[in-house]
């Protein structure tokens, strides 16, 4: 018993050391009642670390005209922000937010020291906050990373040209070198030209497929080891729902991984996988980060809009539902009878592909030949012989128009 007591006292004094050695063990030893109960272990750990840090600091009382609810960490009444429906003061909110991202990076071993990492920057809220937080954490915790900004210009006037100005400002504000790759240079088509040709439906298919390849090409030009994107929890939950709604089993099994494309040219990671979109916006607002906030002009016709509406309605009733959908997506097990596409390489460009030609080559061929529907439309993959929805004319038989399974990341 005495030993336990002594250990408990020592554990209190050596908290900072213990935390580095064996975080899980440290947490078990400290069963003090003033730790806040949170469902998720990660969030719990982030909060307890912040609480301990603040105990050793002096917290100043700031008087406000109307104090709000007490901050969950310091119990001081300071116009707070909410995270997971719990109140936090502004400083605690920043700390818990950054600490959570740090925990996600460390636990999933997203980066190694000395790596060159490109941040996919569109000028929007997620990529701006990602660039800010990553450079901050890189400095604070000595990740030893070389960070770059990588931006893709799809050629959408009124949308992309404005957001590129924002990225150029970010380059100066955060001191990160910027590289822009454009569809016109890579494929010879801008999105505006593509939409003129194919109409307002299925634009996102072209844009998404081309963008993924463009990011890879840009990353190869920069000679980086990894690409980090700003996909947040809401995005991933929407993707899980979308893949269920479309019956896309191959993508469903991959879309929740925090690192994707490890066997491909350049792996991609999503440090914001467990961060709500709401937290990111609040963080950006209070830190006065500069971002561009307009919807792509072609997006009202996107299928993802329905999944997004649904997720937002769910969030209103129970915010936790978003992380739970991601959890369900991670736990899906595909039945052994389902045949999955196999990975190979594209014959035309050498990119990874599960069909003879990769999706981008199929789409590009369709555009160049004036067959806009080539590569669009459902066929059920190797399992089923049904081929419907594709308007093929003679000469197109050599092109596989089955749904390409490996082009998402």
């Amino acid at each position: 018993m005495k030993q336990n007591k002594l250990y408990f006292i020592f554990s209190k004094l050596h908290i900072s050391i213990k935390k580095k050695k064996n975080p899980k063990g440290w947490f078990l030893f400290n069963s003090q009642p003033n730790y806040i109960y949170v469902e998720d272990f990660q969030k719990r750990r982030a909060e307890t670390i912040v609480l301990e840090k603040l105990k050793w600091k002096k917290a100043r009382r700031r008087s406000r005209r109307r104090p709000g609810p007490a901050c969950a960490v310091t119990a001081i009444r300071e116009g707070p922000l909410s995270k997971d429906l719990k109140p936090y003061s502004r400083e605690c909110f920043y700390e818990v937010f950054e600490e959570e991202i740090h925990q996600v990076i460390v636990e999933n071993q997203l980066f190694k020291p000395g790596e060159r990492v490109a941040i996919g920057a569109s000028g929007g809220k997620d990529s701006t906050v990602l660039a800010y937080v990553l450079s901050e954490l890189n400095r604070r915790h000595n990740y030893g990373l070389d960070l770059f900004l990588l931006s893709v210009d799809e050629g959408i006037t009124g949308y992309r040209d404005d957001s590129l100005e924002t990225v150029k400002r970010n380059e100066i504000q955060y001191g990160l070198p910027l590289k822009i790759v454009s569809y016109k240079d890579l494929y010879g088509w801008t999105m505006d030209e593509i939409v003129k040709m194919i109409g307002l439906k299925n634009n996102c298919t072209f844009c998404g497929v081309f963008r993924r390849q463009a990011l890879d090409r840009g990353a190869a030009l920069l000679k980086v080891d990894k690409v980090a994107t700003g996909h947040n929890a809401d995005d991933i939950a929407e993707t899980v729902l979308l893949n269920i709604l479309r019956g896309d089993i191959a993508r469903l099994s991959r879309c929740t991984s925090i690192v994707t494309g490890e066997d491909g040219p350049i792996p991609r990671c999503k440090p914001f996988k467990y961060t709500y979109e709401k937290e990111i916006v609040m963080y950006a607002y209070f830190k006065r980060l500069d971002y561009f906030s307009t919807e792509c002009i072609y997006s009202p016709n996107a299928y993802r809009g329905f999944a997004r509406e649904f997720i937002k309605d769910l969030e209103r009733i129970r915010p936790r539902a978003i992380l739970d959908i991601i959890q369900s997506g991670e736990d899906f097990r595909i039945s052994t009878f389902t045949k999955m596409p196999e990975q190979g390489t594209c014959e035309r460009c050498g990119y990874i592909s599960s069909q003879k030609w990769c999706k981008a080559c199929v789409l590009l061929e369709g555009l160049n030949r004036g067959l806009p529907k080539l590569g669009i439309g459902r066929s059920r993959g190797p399992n089923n012989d049904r081929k419907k929805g594709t308007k093929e004319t003679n000469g197109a038989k050599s092109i596989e128009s089955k749904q390409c399974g490996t082009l998402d990341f």
Partner: protein
Amino acid sequence: MQLTLEFGGGLELLCDSVKVHNVNVDMAKGAEKLIMKDLLGWVHTNLIKERPEMFMKGDTVRPGVLVLVNDCDWELSGQLDTTLEEKDVVVFISTLHGG
């Protein structure tokens, strides 16, 4: 009652691209205090010039729009039942755009 309303995240496009509005809101007849619900109705009638479905859905804001009252999330102070006082700052930020 004097209030300052701010619109962000693309919502300013619904109010003639003006981000900050200093407004004088009259309370409903017979009401003792101004609550958010009344303010939303007032904004809907007086400030939103186009596409009101981007801002409101039914009685409340569209899901995906953050509301901050004096830099405090309205969900912590009662959401629609939040009482407003003189010189309060209410911020509406939309999160529904690409990142």
